[in-house]
């Protein structure tokens, strides 16, 4: 999405939803959903839409883990690192996942195929280790499940 498209989206969205400051995060969600990330070059247009400073928007954008300022890989695997998953062997699965997917935790693989990210709890705490693979929940991840995920993100 280039700046013009983003600006158009911002203006359509704010026309429909409003320009109150409290709608900033919903707009950021909408932008990220449409574009995969929120480019720094769009911040000025976002700020202007809500009558905020660029600094205001930048502060919000950089505070929340969810918002990406760079595009992610084509597939996104979010692996839970929280205690319940750890109690079920999560640490070993995490180590195996980085190896199997060929990417360090928190990074995007060089070929842009997959981004591996930590997540802290998906609320599936009795059936871990868990992950979200492109938004789809996967429970009881073992080596076989990692193989399936690796195959899925190869596509």
């Amino acid at each position, binding site marked *: 999405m280039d700046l013009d498209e983003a600006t158009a989206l911002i203006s359509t969205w704010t026309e429909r939803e409003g320009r109150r400051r409290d709608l*900033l995060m919903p707009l950021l969600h909408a932008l990220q959903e449409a574009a995969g990330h929120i480019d720094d070059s769009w911040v000025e247009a976002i700020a202007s839409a809500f009558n905020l400073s660029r600094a205001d928007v930048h502060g919000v954008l950089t505070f929340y883990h969810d918002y990406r300022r760079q595009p992610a890989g084509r597939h996104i695997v979010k692996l839970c690192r929280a*205690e319940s998953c750890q109690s079920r062997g999560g640490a070993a699965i995490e180590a195996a996942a980085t190896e199997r997917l060929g990417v360090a935790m928190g990074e995007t693989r060089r070929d842009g195929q997959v981004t591996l990210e930590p997540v802290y*709890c998906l609320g599936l705490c009795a059936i871990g280790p868990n992950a979200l693979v492109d938004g789809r929940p996967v429970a009881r991840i073992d080596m076989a499940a990692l193989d399936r995920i690796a195959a899925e993100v190869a596509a």
Partner: protein
Amino acid sequence: MTRVFISRDMASVALGADDVARAFAGAGCDIVRTGSRGLFSIEPLVEVETTDGRVGYGPVTPGDVAAVLGGTHPNRLGDIAALPFFTAQQRFTFARCGIVDPLSLADYAAHRGWIGLEIAHAAEPQAVVDTVKASGLRGRGGAGFPTGIKWQTVLDAPGGTKYIVCNADEGDSGTFADRLLMEGDPFCLIEGMAIAAHAVGASHGYIYIRSEYPFAIATMREAIALSAGRIAPFTLEVRAGAGAYVCGEETALLDSIEGKRGQVRAKPPLPALAGLFGKPTVINNVLSLAAVPFILAEGADAYANVGFGRSRGTMPVQLAGNVKHGGLFEVGFGITLGELVNDIGGGTTSGRPVRAVQVGGPLGAYFPPSMFDLPFDYEAFTQAGGLIGHAGITVFDDSVDMAHMARFAMEFCAVESCGKCTPCRIGSTRGVEIVDRIIAAREIEPVRATANGDTLGKALYSRAPDRIDVSLEAQTVLLRDLCDTMKFGSLCALGGFTPYPVLSALDHFPEDFGAPAPALEAAE
């Protein structure tokens, strides 16, 4: 056409429920997607409607359609409600969960839905607040503050505009009750919020749901649209979080709704007086609000008659982690930790001995089995150096390294700290570093360096490598000092409670920190 009930809960789906549902649909069944009953060892669960009521099978795979429909499947469970896991519960809040279609207004009404709201609407706001007070309901988010008193403050607060905010930012590992309810019985929460709105004079409400719960967000949004007419003129909307754990802290949550960085506000002013957009605001947890329809419908006594000490009513306990029968277990206060972990939960999945349980999420204390006679009660837990929090219990077997878990507690705090207050912002990172030094030192005791002098100048230069005492003893003292600074110096519970898991690990499992094991533990 055979009617079958299959959960659409995120956990069930994670275990393959969608594939199972597709398979049954392919076989010509009429599929009703319900919430989850809350016992995950039997998911994906399929309940087949028969003349004798629903007959459950679980877990089931897509290949099991014929066996289930033929009644021959080996995982036949019969009447799910009759399973011991369920008969032992007192399902006040979760009565409908797993049974009804969460987005069917008819189902909801057929299962005593909206009765509480009707009673509330017929009463004066003060009477509603009085009923909630009389029920003894305390905030289920962790702090245990009496809900009725909070509502009274908002009711009494001057000003025309007031808000109801539901804290559905359930970020604690080991907890999932909010998610289960929002996905399985969303109207219950909506009804609770509508009652609160009537009680305090609010006209609009927000449900702030963490982005890690996409199913709950979608279900709540749909349920709000469906029930808009039922709760009018009260209106509701869902706001999705963006991956910040700290937004579960109520003031950070309010700032987040306002479109700001989710930083914790100093209190006072209390949100009840100056909350969302500076207006008087009821901010309650999902479980607190979802308990209200029962209280109104069945009466305060029906709720208050259950419980223990000053902890009245039921607590939806969540059994999580390395536990055989993990799930949602709603029960009156007073049940012991041991009963929950061993009797209800059935011990570990791995079959190894339980070594520790963490109660109350990442900010909760670790308890050894020696403390399993602790009753589930706010005061008892506080006294034992822990907290009930959101009543999640994460079970660990004997493979756990408690120094690693203490390190993780600090690491989690470092990852999620909003960065506002100093003890949390810097302390959490220093905490990770100290535990790393302890882990490095617990097998090789290094030579102790000497430190002397007492000037500020020395403080500034004391970070030179040869001035640091990296001995186990010194680092353990430092860790305790740091925990003291964080516990009593932090602005909110994130920094303030992170010492609970750290200190409890240090106290109950000293051997993992290079010190001798406590005698009590050895005796068991």
